[in-house]
């Protein structure tokens, strides 16, 4: 069992927190893990991605070969498309539908959606609406997205939830609760819409 995931977004959106929670869950399950992150210059409002690989077998490379990614998990729809060359034929795109427009050249959003919808397996999720629905701040969008990926992750919801609790343990009880609501909302959405 393996899962190669590309996490994508714009610097500052919080993709590394998603990776940390999945990593914690993988650790709890006794899986192997490798996760290549981007630090430094690209953090400043630029495109960021992280290759996250979890597997029951040892993993060689920190980078995922092209055409082998199981899930592209993106906090921004345009950024999701950037990593399509890495997606496996039966891979899935799970992305927020909320655009982050900090460039003049941002394409027509309908064209972006259409390009995502051309992939047989995709989940487009309005993270703004979902966080609002569960009364969580926009910063919890990353946990909505993570929740939506759980059906494809190969790790049970409860394990991921426990990992989230552990990762956020140093923050307040309220922060943990909010993030769990966001995670659950994403999970329920994916189950209905996959």
């Amino acid at each position, binding site marked *: 069992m393996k899962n190669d995931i590309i996490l994508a977004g*714009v*610097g500052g959106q919080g993709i590394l927190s998603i*990776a940390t929670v999945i*990593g*914690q869950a993988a*650790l709890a399950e006794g899986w*192997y*893990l*490798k*996760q*290549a*992150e*981007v*630090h*430094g*210059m*690209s*953090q*400043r*409002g*630029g*495109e960021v991605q992280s290759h996250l690989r979890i597997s029951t077998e040892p*993993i*060689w*490379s*920190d*980078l*995922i*070969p*092209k*055409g082998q990614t199981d899930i592209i998990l993106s906090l921004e729809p*345009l*950024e999701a*498309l*950037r990593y*399509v*060359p*890495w*997606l*496996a*034929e039966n891979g899935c795109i799970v992305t927020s539908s909320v655009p982050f427009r*900090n*460039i003049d*050249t*941002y*394409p027509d959003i309908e*064209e*972006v959606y259409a*390009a995502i919808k*051309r992939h047989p397996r995709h989940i487009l999720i309005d993270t703004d609406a979902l966080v609002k629905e569960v009364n969580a701040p926009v910063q919890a969008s990353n946990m909505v997205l993570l929740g939506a990926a759980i059906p494809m992750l190969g790790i049970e919801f409860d394990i991921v939830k426990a990992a989230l609790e552990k990762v956020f343990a140093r923050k307040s009880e309220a922060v943990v609760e909010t993030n769990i609501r966001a995670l659950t909302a994403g999970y329920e959405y994916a189950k209905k819409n996959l």
Partner: protein
Amino acid sequence: MKHILLGDEAIAQGAIDAGLSGVYAYPGTPSTEITEYIQLVESRKSKVESCEDNPIFCRWATNEKTAMEAALGMTYAGKRALVCMKHVGMNVCADAFVNSAITGVNGGLVVVAADDPSMHSSQNEQDSRFYAKFALIPCLEPSNQQEAYDMTRMAFDLSEKLRVPILMRVTTRMAHSRAMVETVDTPKAQNMRHLPENAQHFILLPAFAKRNYADLLSEQPEFVRLSEELGNNVYTRGTDPKRAIVACGIAHNYMQEAGIAQGASILKVTQYPLPVKLINQMVADGVEDILVAEEGQPVVEELLRGMVPSHVRIRGRLTGDLPRMGELSPDCFIGVESVSKAESELKLPGRPPSMCQGCGHRDMYTALNEVAREYKEARIFGDIGCYTLGALSPFHAIHSCVEMGASVTMAKGAADAGQHPAIAVIGDSTFTHSGMTGLLDCVNSNADVVVLISDNLTTGMTGGQDSAGTGKLERICMAMGVEEEHVRVVVPLAKNMEEMKQVIREEINYHGTSVIIARRECIQTLKRKARK
């Protein structure tokens, strides 16, 4: 114990567990997290009152050269020290580094150079393995996070045994990738302070240095023997030994992931100098074709040409079998044809990094650009930091960016040649790193330059580390000899735009050396403080 650690963190934990007494470093991607991890561990330790451990010195140094020298001083006193930097930091500390191989060390000294192939956050792709060869010392290049941890501990022992510094070379993917690492439960105790037995060893007068250098040269066969016998380099004879792959550090993983070995012999290299015996064995096994997989520049590929018979074909980055520049990936080995061509049909615009909304550098550039336009040929010499992004849209403000501190001295040289206005833009941390000496040059010839220090009270680009000159910049500039009335301070905010422009104009029109400090706290560090 098992932890999920970044490569950088694995090195840091390895150093702590090896009985580290001090880490000396200047922030630089991708090396910053090594020191930050040790600082975090230390800050938690200090909260435990009953903790009897000796503290580990872990304050940031002003630059890589001061870091390297302080570390050498710590090892002189018999303790173990770690020096960390990005690859270009090796250039800054090269004098101290190369000569530390001649003085030798008393306590263990490990130097970590984090290379950045593909220039994710750097201005070049230089390969630090050259420095180890240059200084004639051993180099370790872990291929995964566990090795990074284990090899750091080993490196300290090796350094003390051989009495030379050990260079550990990692690359961005190693430094910034996480994996499970098994660590020891009890760290080694720190060394007791003990002074060198041979006092002359650290005095590099020619008479003594010649003796030391001869010693270092005579040790070279021993370094090779250790590369052959310590187990860091492993030769595995394949079922088809006519083919071999020499895979160094993290490139070994990509090669394995790609599954291209298929019966070829494999020489995994994680320690230098190259293991001559193992290479001879590969030749004795009848190798005819060697693929060299190495991250960075073709160091091993070139060396091998002088080590194997001429009929053996050597392929790699020099022959075009692997890309000459950029970091490797499994795809480089799989070959382009078998890689999925599933490109997105939509043409995707790039999203380059930019300065944060609300950042003081932005207001500084707005003012500077407006004033610069009033002159026919104003030239703005930039430097290394977040403000380098002023080269991009919408500012297009700077005309150069070379290396730490070059803004000040390039502006001076251009002014010497008659360029006016010649303006340097440099951050506070870069200024204390390498700009101060250049400013002294300016003052000594009263060069007609304006040095604009964009002071955000932190080392911003690397994530907000302490900046060595915070609270001292005006006094430093005046002590260097800049006249008091030409050390100006402005607050870069939109509401102060007219005042800022006026100050810049006045100092451009003053035909001597002047400094303008545009001071406003980095909004990222400000936000972080607000959250606490």
